[in-house]
């Protein structure tokens, strides 16, 4: 009786070679278990494709470039305005200077000589 039990036990515990796809099945089961434990948000982040990141970076570059361009345009406009203001003031200054020339010429012609005034 004990020999019978012993032989049955040996037969049950005999080493058996695993099937050809045993390792693949084991890895797949481990990955599935691990995936089931990861939260959904981390799953989404990990799952975004490269194209999404590229699109987002291009959009950010466009927005940043537009902002910089507008800032530079505003600066150029301000410089142009200040330059135009300076030119206006210069033009009017020169006009008044030449008007003053005409005035001085008229004044000198209208004013009698000093010796005539003191003689009278």
């Amino acid at each position, binding site marked *: 009786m004990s020999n019978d039990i012993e032989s049955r036990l040996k037969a049950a515990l005999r080493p058996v070679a695993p099937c050809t796809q045993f390792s693949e099945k084991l890895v797949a089961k481990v990955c599935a278990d691990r995936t089931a434990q990861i939260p959904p948000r981390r799953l989404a982040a990990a799952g975004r494709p490269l194209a999404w990141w590229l699109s987002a970076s291009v959009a950010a570059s466009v927005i940043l470039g537009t902002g910089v361009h507008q800032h530079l345009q505003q600066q150029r406009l301000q410089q142009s305005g*200040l330059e135009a203001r300076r030119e206006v003031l210069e033009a009017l200054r020169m006009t*008044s200077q030449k008007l003053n020339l*005409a005035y*001085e*010429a008229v004044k000198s012609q209208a004013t009698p000589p000093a010796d005539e005034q003191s003689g009278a």
Partner: protein
Amino acid sequence: MKRFTLLLIALLTPILAGAAPSARLLLPNFAGLAQKASESVSITLDPALLSLAGKFLDGNDPQDAATKDILKGLQGIYVRSYTFDKDSAYQQSDIDAVRSQLSAPGWNRLMETRSRKTHADVDIYIMIDNNQAVGLALIASEPRQFTIVNIVGAIDLDKLHKLEGQFGVPKLDLDQSKPPDQLKPPAPQRKQSP
């Protein structure tokens, strides 16, 4: 019908263009003179630049406020000024091309001064349209400098008068009720001896 319309436009355009004289002078390039000049000033302010300049004038500053007020009716300011190191470095013929334009209809000579003291000749012309000044031209010739100023637009002589004291503008005592050829220079102030 289309040909008739085009012909009508072609015939009327010169007439319409002649009916409204332009106060803007065609200023020469003066490239040759600019090379000889020790100092040259060329200012060209069209309506867009004048409008832009007006935005940068401070209304709280008296000078800027007076300037802003004048700019309201103006459509252009054009200045050419050349200074030389020696006398008679430029020819009167260089300026004649501008003077000839001032003999066109619409222009009236407001003032012509010849000074032996300063050897400066100043001619001031004004263009009148519908009893309103619409252009000013000033030609100042000095031994070592000449300046041409052309202002286009509704020039208010009152505002010009208000510029007295600003930029050193003298009191011209201009009476708007009189025609330009009857405008007289101001009466001289006699100094009283002690």
